[in-house]
């Protein structure tokens, strides 16, 4: 989710706007419309915003662009009530924020990363979809079906030797069509004192990832938690049952479409809404 090159994102977003220029400009009844044709600049920016809105209205979830190389893919344009965008300081434009998938990094990646990526490409060809070097760490985006094979190599290859799997968890991106559920593995090499993050994305409609419990027994409870919280099915897990929630619980609580819940609280005469129903100041 790194934004290596925000300019590119803007450019892509702008291209999208141009592509959809023929879509008629809808009027949001909840946003006061600025007076027309007072200032050319403002009118233009409103026009632009209108197009983005049209785009987002037409594809409420996602706008995945064609990409090659290290360009972050636009996943979603999130809009809110407040904020400024596109030099529109009137406030009427509302908030507009592009959400992107991480851009791949270009080799050489530096440190020990190049060697590790090379070893993995040799031993498990086709596993790595993308390499992201960000925030001082190496992240490998891999294909789900190669996960088990990769785990064997990560653990047993003497040049990698990631003996310990500290953590498996999930992240939910409902707007990223066909990549909604991301499973994130953090591996630790005590021999080399290194960490690597491996993540794989699966669609919500078919959330299957091979279990790596047979390689890393530590993954047992972590995978159960990820199943419990996100509904990712780990094929080959010895007993994939709920772990934190009761056995008969419906739904997967950490998914974004699962409500937080809560009741309004009365305090000194005022009523405070539960956190997920309060007015949001940011999107």
């Amino acid at each position, binding site marked *: *989710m790194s934004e290596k090159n925000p300019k590119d994102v803007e450019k892509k977003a702008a291209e999208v706007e141009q592509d959809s220029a023929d879509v008629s400009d809808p009027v949001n009844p909840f946003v006061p419309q600025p007076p027309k044709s007072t200032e050319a600049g403002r009118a233009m920016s409103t026009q632009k915003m209108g197009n983005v809105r049209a785009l987002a209205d037409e594809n409420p979830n996602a706008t995945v662009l064609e990409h090659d190389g290290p360009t972050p893919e636009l996943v979603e344009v999130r809009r809110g009530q407040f904020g400024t965008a596109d030099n529109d300081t009137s406030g009427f434009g509302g908030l507009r924020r592009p959400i992107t998938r991480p851009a791949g990094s270009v080799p050489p990646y530096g440190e020990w990363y190049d060697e590790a990526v090379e070893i993995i490409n040799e031993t498990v060809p086709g596993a790595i979809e993308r390499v992201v070097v960000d925030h001082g760490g190496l992240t490998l985006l891999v294909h789900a079906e190669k996960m088990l094979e990769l785990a064997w190599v990560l653990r047993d290859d003497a040049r990698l030797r990631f003996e310990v799997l500290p953590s498996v968890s999930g*992240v*939910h991106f409902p707007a990223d069509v066909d990549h909604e559920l991301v499973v994130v593995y953090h591996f630790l090499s005590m021999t080399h004192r290194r960490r690597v993050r491996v993540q794989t994305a699966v669609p919500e409609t078919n959330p299957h990832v091979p279990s790596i419990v047979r390689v890393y027994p530590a993954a047992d409870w972590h995978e159960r938690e990820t199943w419990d919280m996100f509904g990712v099915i780990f094929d080959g897990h010895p007993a994939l049952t709920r772990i*934190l929630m009761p056995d008969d619980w419906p739904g997967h609580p950490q998914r974004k479409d699962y409500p937080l819940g809560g009741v309004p609280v009365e305090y000194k005469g005022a009523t405070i809404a539960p956190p997920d129903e309060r007015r949001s100041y940011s999107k």
Partner: protein
Amino acid sequence: MTDDYYGTMANDDVEADQVYTATGQDWDEIVTSQAERGDELLVVNMGPQHPSTHGVLRLILEMDGETVQKARAGIGYLHTGIEKNMEFRTFTQGATFCTRMDYLTPFSQETAYAMAVEELLGITDEIPEKANVIRVMLLEFNRIASHLIAIGTGANELGATTVMTQAFRNREMILDVFEAITGLRMNHGFIRPGGVPNDVTDEELDVVDETIRFLHWRLPEIAELCNENPIFKGRHVGVGYLDEATCLALGITGPMLRSTGNTWDLRKDMPYLGYETYDFDVITRDEGDAYAKFRVRQDELYQSLRIVEQCRDRLRKMQGARHIVDDPKIAWPAQMAVGGDGIGNSNEHIKHIMGESMEGLIHHFKIVTEGFHVPAGQAYAAVESPKGELGAHVVSDGGTRPWRAHFRDPSFNNLQAVSALAEGAMMSDVIVAVASVDPVMGGVDR
């Protein structure tokens, strides 16, 4: 969203042949009626409300007489959805939530979380040195407090009540330090992205001094009571054994791993917060049993005390230095004072926004309602908590609230070892084995 992929309902029609509900005073009846069915295994539910399960842990034991054939841990009774809640709060408020996970090591969660957010903000190098020294001091005091609980409750479950009272008395002195510095004895929310909100004054360092003196005086009592005590050794030696390879396979870290001879300690091997500049030893033992784990924890008390002393000396020389980053957006709220209504607030800040600057007030409103933006990305920061590696995986989408905050709690991971520790042992050894894991269910279930 709802899919019964694994048929959790499928086995509903399978029922146990015989169910006993023990209500107290009826053990003889149960024993008699089970004796008639002597060839069958007895499944015992230990917990979720049992004094020796460190909270609400449920152990499902298949007993053949007194021997444990199978041991399974049932968890989730203390699941409070802290991670989900954090997605609805600002990054600053997150510290207040994650501190409540493992309530015996609040500073570890706060530090891991703060380090992950700082990594995302790219301000790791800008954190003032003083903030890191204060963090280290609190973390190490916290390690002593947590180990004291592990030792004290572990002994208490065997009937050694004196060890428990001594451990809790010593811990009380450490909580006094926490109260002096952070204002709270538990659930501090003190270590925040950017630094720590309040300075440590000379008076507070005097409390630290007093506590260090007290601990030097009182900590050795535990060793005198337990180390060579034949009953204590009889219950611990050779019980709850786990070797190094199993520990690594199960991802077990912390004192459990170090009791097998492995020297892995994040403070030494992947230093953070400037741990490489402190003088301390990593404690290891080779036996890998409950006694070794007890001795590792006990010896770590003194190493942590060494680090605390070094922190105190450094803080004495750093009076007046910054303790939070020089960025008003991230640093708010800081320099709190206790007001008449008991709510902390910065008097200087109130004066500024209410009397001097309209823009200041606007910014204040924006920071309070919205929070600061954290660039999109993800970071994993790990600290050596008293129980092992505690990792915080924080994902930001560029907004003012975490898109996802996941905590890798060492207790959650280490509890997987219960089967390996308890199977084949006596039921009474299960209690020792679980105590040697030192699980805290608040952290396990989050």
